[in-house]
């Protein structure tokens, strides 16, 4: 009885926190909207576009981050069905895919540098590629933090309400990062020539 009550109160208390995450996503969204609008204003005004074919590495990283969303979804479902072993396994998979994404993005920078497309560039359209990917990577790092928090909670056997909350918290953000990357990538593709 008391347990049930506390759980109910818990829900009452966690809902606004989850809502905070949604609001944060709006702020992040505005941030990227501003960067891409900046790109449009710049390239529209100066007549300079990206003027290169983007390295294929971005295609692989896109695939990786989409798969990581799927694995995270599976982990969440496992958590809801009380299959904690499976939850942990797929959380690990998600985190590893996240790290792989990070590595591929950095590799893509190396490729860009080899193509003589530098950050410090008289054509800021090309500098914008670094801004988009770099600012997105900061979000990925934050997302990894949330994933590891959910993982550690799961290992420490925190109460199920909290476990689910952490999963959802990480999930909302991670899927958002995924979608934002797709948006950025499509945006870059549309503007590459």
């Amino acid at each position, binding site marked *: 009885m008391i347990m049930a*009550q*506390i759980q109910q*109160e*818990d829900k*009452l*208390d966690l*809902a*606004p*926190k989850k*809502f*905070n995450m949604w*609001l*944060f996503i*709006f*702020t*992040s969204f*505005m*941030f990227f*909207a*501003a*960067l891409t*609008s*900046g790109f449009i*204003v*710049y390239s529209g*005004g*100066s007549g*300079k576009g990206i003027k290169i074919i983007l390295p294929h590495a971005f295609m692989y990283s896109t695939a990786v981050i989409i798969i990581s969303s799927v694995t995270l979804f599976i982990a969440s479902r496992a958590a809801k069905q009380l299959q904690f072993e499976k939850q942990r396994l797929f959380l690990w998979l998600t985190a590893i895919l996240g790290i792989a994404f990070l590595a591929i993005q950095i590799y893509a920078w190396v490729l860009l540098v080899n193509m003589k497309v530098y*950050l*410090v*560039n*008289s*054509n*800021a359209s090309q*500098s914008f590629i670094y*801004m988009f990917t770099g*600012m997105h990577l900061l979000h990925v790092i934050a997302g990894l933090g949330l994933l590891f928090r959910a993982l550690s909670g799961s290992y420490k056997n925190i109460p199920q309400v909290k476990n689910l909350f952490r999963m959802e918290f990480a999930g909302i953000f991670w899927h958002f990062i995924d979608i934002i990357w797709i948006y950025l990538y499509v945006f870059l593709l549309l503007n590459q020539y």
Partner: protein
Amino acid sequence: MSTLAVHDHGVESHDHDHEHHHHDTFLTKYVFSQDHKMIAKQFLITGITMAFIAMTLSILFRIQLAYPDKTFPLLHTLLGRFAPEGRIDPNFYMSLVTIHGTIMVFFVLTAGLSGTFSNLLIPLQLGARDMASPFLNMLSYWAFFLASVIMLSSFFVQKGPASGGWTIYPPLSALPKAMPGSGEGMTLWLISMVLFVASSLMGGINYVSTVLNMRTKGMDLWKMPLTIWAFFLTAILGVLSFPVLVAGVVLLIFDRSFGTSFYLSEIVVQGQVMPFEGGSPILFEHLFWFLGHPEVYIVIMPALGISSEIISTNSRKPIFGYHAMVYSLIGISVLSFIVWGHHMFVTGMNPFLGGVFMITTLIIAVPSAVKTFNYLATLWRGNIRFTPAMLFAIGLVSFFISGGLTGLFLGNAALDINLHDTYFVVAHFHLVMGSAAIFGMLAGVYHWFPKMFGRLMDEKLGYLHFWLTFIGAYLVFFPMHFMGLDGVPRRYYAFTEFPSMARWLSVNVFITWAAIMSGVAQIAFLFNFVYSIFWGKKTTQNPWGSNTLEWTAPVEHLHGNWPGEIPTVYRWPYDYSKPGHHEDFIPQTVPYSETMSSNLSHDFEDNEAGLEAFKKWQIANPPREEVK
């Protein structure tokens, strides 16, 4: 069952009397507090401190403007290398203007205003125990505090603080070598502002989330006081527009420190050709003003909300046009995102685009006018109590009108060619934003002082403060319209040295003395504020006879606000002087069943059962014949 979430790491259940409450140490109670009421006070006191600092800066540059060729040895003693031989250095003059503007707009009127009153009133007026995330709330204050310290610390670096104006347009701000104020001072400015934005976002996210999730029973959106509507929409504006500033600032930081060319194009600095190519300074203006214009409404809307509440309470009348007030706030919020171009009419923008921005800008005048008319209609034939808070709220209405009118001139793309960057703009925004919002903030301080500190402020000193400040502000800013019409540019160190503008010297002297007078008047406030915290008259629970929930909470502050259950809400907050009731106010917590004699059929709009009961009661108690 009442519950408190006081720690980020867990949830604690308490029973009604909070007997086994955890014990606060000095550090958790006064410093790293997570209680919204304490955080509100922290914001207020930091805000007031920053306001006094920024005001002092303005007096300093006013002295320069009034006496451009006099020397004041005292200034040298005070400012050292920034005032060699007792005259303010031209670069330092620019720093003064910049830091004055930055502190006033962001640190006082954004953080000081929203931070104080959103924190204090959102939980108290909505019937919540605390914010959605008290921990985030605490972080928000400390990020703000750190931002303030960093901003002020820029006075202690060798070359002085940032000096490109509060709008920090590149290329000036992007080239550390361009002038002294673009060096370390600018770097500190940027760091401080990043922290500031982080603080605003944490605060704003919390406010929105609390309003949407944590209202007490019965408090639907249309029963919220207008203060809450204003804080809520303000927070939404902040959440959507501050990230855009961050994007602009990030690009600026890359230009400054890593050599990219987002904003910089071919340029020669001190005879040296810089390596930048092809950037667009206009891009920065777009990003800046996309925040910048919503920002001015972030500043004014809380003040408007506060004065709605105070004017209604002290006119002892329901607010006129509650729904219209809410819809105009919403209208202002939406429109404020599509007018930023009016700050850029003379950047060479396509005249067609200028026309579009002109139309959207002029449309904003409509909801603004709706609000002012509603204030006036609320005052009309009210049973007005002229408390100091009420006077300041009326002062806000006055400034909002006189400053808003000049907005219409500036919003006209053709007229703006003449008026842009003149003192006319300075007059416009100091009345409509500076004075109006400060008056709203002061009104709030006088009105909710008893709620914050359990004591009343002295009324006599309040009146003195009001009249000196009110008259002073008009004396300072009104003449600036004429200077602007004559073409006097803003941000000039000594424009009266130009023969064509020399005649404005006497006006400058006049303005400076008016500014000094209003500055001195603030000491009456400061004294009153500090004195009343410790020795003011003890307040009763509901000193103004107000309807809103915060006055149902006990005077002593409790963690969790109400000792027992959170009160339930039955009616809107503006039942003042309702005919048929024995008192001239009915708090939101009084159910209709207890006020049969004053109920009206439309009180039961979506309450069939209530309406039936009311009809029966009416038949049983026919209205008595009036005795003539």
